[in-house]
């Protein structure tokens, strides 16, 4: 197995594939399972006018928060962005466009985009702002709204482990949006905590087959953030 997909660092892994006004997908839920190293490298690249598809927008100074701070994002497609003060400011003064999308619809749009489904129907959002301007159709007595599949020029994902073919596995709830986004990027770049040889991951346990991953960067021991540290007392 060659090392063709392996890049020495995040900057190299993004070299030649970033440009102004492109569409990026970025995995993660809150600060859990976000491709933080790759996001920081996007910041360093200086590209602007980005459309970013991501469930959340990071927090001030972490994750996509840094791209908001640097005003590199012009449009966010997200379900919930409540944790970010800069976001609020840019949104209210019109610097940032936001397409609020129900979380399940967003997840399905990304899955559809990767799977060659240009549109599908869902009951989520029927009769709400979300359905305005969209086709609503009745199937078997119930109304559904048509939603489109989503793809990205580049998808950035975070995985727990990859082999050199790009087969990915995730850890606990850090899986979240990463698997679908890997399938929906024209180019998918994965930052991985552990990089192993092909054959070291049981093929029945692989979540994302390597066909979806074009570039891999090994980021051992990343700093992982906890947004809301909740604990219980030891009696």
């Amino acid at each position, binding site marked *: 197995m060659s090392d063709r997909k392996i890049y020495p660092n995040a900057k190299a892994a993004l070299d030649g594939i970033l440009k102004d006004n492109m569409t990026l997908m970025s995995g993660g839920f809150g600060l859990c399972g976000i491709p933080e190293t790759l996001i920081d490298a996007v910041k360093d690249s200086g590209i602007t006018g980005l459309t970013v598809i991501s469930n959340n927008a990071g927090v001030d100074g972490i994750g996509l928060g840094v791209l908001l701070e640097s005003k590199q994002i012009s449009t966010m497609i*997200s379900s919930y962005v409540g944790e970010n003060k800069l976001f609020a400011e840019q949104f209210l003064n019109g610097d940032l466009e936001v397409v609020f999308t129900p979380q399940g619809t967003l997840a399905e749009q990304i899955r559809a985009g990767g799977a060659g489904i240009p549109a599908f129907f869902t009951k*989520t959002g029927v009769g*709400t702002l979300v359905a305005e301007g969209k086709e609503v159709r009745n199937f078997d007595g119930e109304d559904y709204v048509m939603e489109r599949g989503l793809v990205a020029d580049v998808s950035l994902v975070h995985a727990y482990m990859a082999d050199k073919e790009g087969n990915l596995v995730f850890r*606990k709830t*850090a899986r979240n949006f990463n698997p679908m986004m890997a399938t929906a990027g024209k180019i998918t770049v994965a930052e991985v905590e552990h990089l192993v040889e092909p054959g070291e991951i049981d093929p029945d346990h692989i979540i994302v087959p390597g066909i979806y991953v074009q570039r891999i960067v090994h980021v051992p021991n990343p700093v992982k*953030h906890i947004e809301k540290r*909740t604990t219980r007392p030891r009696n």
Partner: protein
Amino acid sequence: MAWTREQMAQRAARELQDGFYVNLGIGIPTLVSNYIPDGMEIMFQSENGMLGMGPFPYEGEEDPDLINAGKQTVTELPTTSYFSNSDSFGMIRGGHINLSILGAMQVAQNGDLANWMIPGKMVKGMGGAMDLVAGVKKVIVVMEHTAKGDPKLLKSCNLPLTGKGVVDMVITDMAVFRFDKSGDTTVMKLIELADGVTLDEVKSSTEAEFETHL
């Protein structure tokens, strides 16, 4: 002389049935997990991709890779499974979750629910709420009966909707209502008063029209 938050959660817990798969929203709904009747097996789903959610971890055992939909650190149980967000919402939208308990800003007498947006104020987004109310078999709202003295149970919602006609039951600090749907009509029924609350008190705090079936 009304129910406390704990009592509201306790009342909601009486709607649990053995073997139920349940999604709890943040706030009072989260407290419901403290009142699972003895001997009942309930599995909690977290829409970020977990079924079989355990309690908060002991201090020092927090795992950044293990959070609930409210971004709080949680723990794993022997029954736990993890999956992607698309699989999670397939589960929700496909009608596989028995019960969703969540908060609300407004509920209308036809079962409309508003809980995600106040126009002109900062909008945080609907998260998974629209999918949950559209997809889950039974939707229970747990909320204060009024907000700063204004009724939250209305003839019709004036805030943007989260879902149309989706509410099956409302539990407030004053009373419990059931929403009975047959065909296109929904009837809102008062079925229970909180301890020490009178029917007149409920009527004067409620804009919505409801039948009384105490």
